[in-house]
């Protein structure tokens, strides 16, 4: 039977630290008790980014974004929202200035001006399931590259995109690739630098946790 509803629980380190594992458990238990496990699925995704208000639970396709969910409110979400279709108002993000409740993620100011490319799959897919990544067009780029493009074309497109290294120096990525391509050597390596050491920066970790592919 196809699922009619999914509860996405943030599984980033930040939310896990504020007990999102427990929330996940409570939600699953509640769904099971209501005998809805065939219709409603609870899964843990990568980081939503809104760590300030964690743990975060997003109900889809209703597109309701719950913040600061604890065990009690998790129970309530099952009883009210999942079973009865009633939104649990008090756990919806409240804009502090206007006091307005904003149930949809996209309308929250925190997300309003964001364009998520690197974080595109964070909070959307189950990071421990490759099929979901593939469903989100994962590996399609690789497939296209391997079947339709020459290495030079790949470097060219990266060059033309103007992408610069996001690690610090901001060196144009395409040029870097080209330099390595042109270096002589039968063996070459690619290294993904995930040694994020800045105090107060954790984007790389979030990507790895939320979208490891």
């Amino acid at each position, binding site marked *: 039977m196809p699922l009619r509803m999914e509860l996405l629980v943030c599984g980033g380190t930040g939310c896990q630290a504020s007990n999102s594992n427990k929330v996940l458990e409570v939600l699953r238990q509640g769904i099971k008790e209501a005998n809805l496990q065939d219709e409603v699925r609870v899964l843990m995704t990568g980081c939503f980014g809104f760590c300030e208000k964690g743990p975060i639970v997003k109900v889809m396709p209703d597109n309701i974004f719950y913040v600061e969910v604890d065990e009690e409110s998790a129970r309530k979400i099952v009883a009210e929202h999942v079973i009865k279709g009633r939104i649990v108002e008090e756990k919806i993000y409240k804009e502090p200035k206007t006091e307005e409740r904003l149930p949809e993620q996209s309308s929250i100011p925190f997300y309003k001006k964001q364009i998520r490319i690197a974080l595109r799959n964070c909070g959307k897919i189950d990071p421990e399931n490759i099929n979901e990544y593939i469903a989100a067009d994962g590996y399609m780029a690789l497939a296209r590259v391997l079947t339709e493009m020459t290495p030079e074309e790949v470097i060219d497109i990266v060059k033309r995109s103007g992408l610069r290294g996001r690690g610090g120096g901001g060196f144009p990525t395409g040029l870097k690739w080209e330099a390595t391509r042109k270096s002589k050597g039968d063996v070459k390596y690619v290294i993904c630098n995930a040694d994020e050491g800045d*105090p*107060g920066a954790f984007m790389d970790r979030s990507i790895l946790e939320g979208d490891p592919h």
Partner: protein
Amino acid sequence: MAKYDVDEVKLRQLEEYIDSLEQKEGALIGVLYKAQEIFGYLPKDVQLFIARKLGITAAKVYGVATFYSYFTMEPRGKHVINVCMGTACFVKGADKILEEIKKELDIKEGNMSKDGLFTVDTLRCVGACGLAPVVMVDGKVYGRVKIEDVKGILDEYRE
């Protein structure tokens, strides 16, 4: 065969791990990581064993072990308390939390408490800046820690 003044069972465990590696070149950090997992810290003889096993000099192993803050040559307490000193935590008073823990346990940073229960250390950002200040005990993260919470957190591990 050289004698090593460490737990033999653990040493054998480490040996098996090293033997299982396909590539020994460049494996040093991974091996030290494993050794610390097994022994809890990196005593001199363990480092010496690793050096001989990997065919590198003891000085190199020692140089590497002292370079990375993750490795320790001191025995660790049963529970390791890490206070995050990332910027976000720092501006939210992590230093005061650390002071409190040190006071409560009467130890210095990096040391083990007399009862062998705790080791206190700092680290740079666990990436939970939203919860600053953050204290981590054996991988469990406590967020928005206040000075008055310290005793309660420690007590959880004192039974």
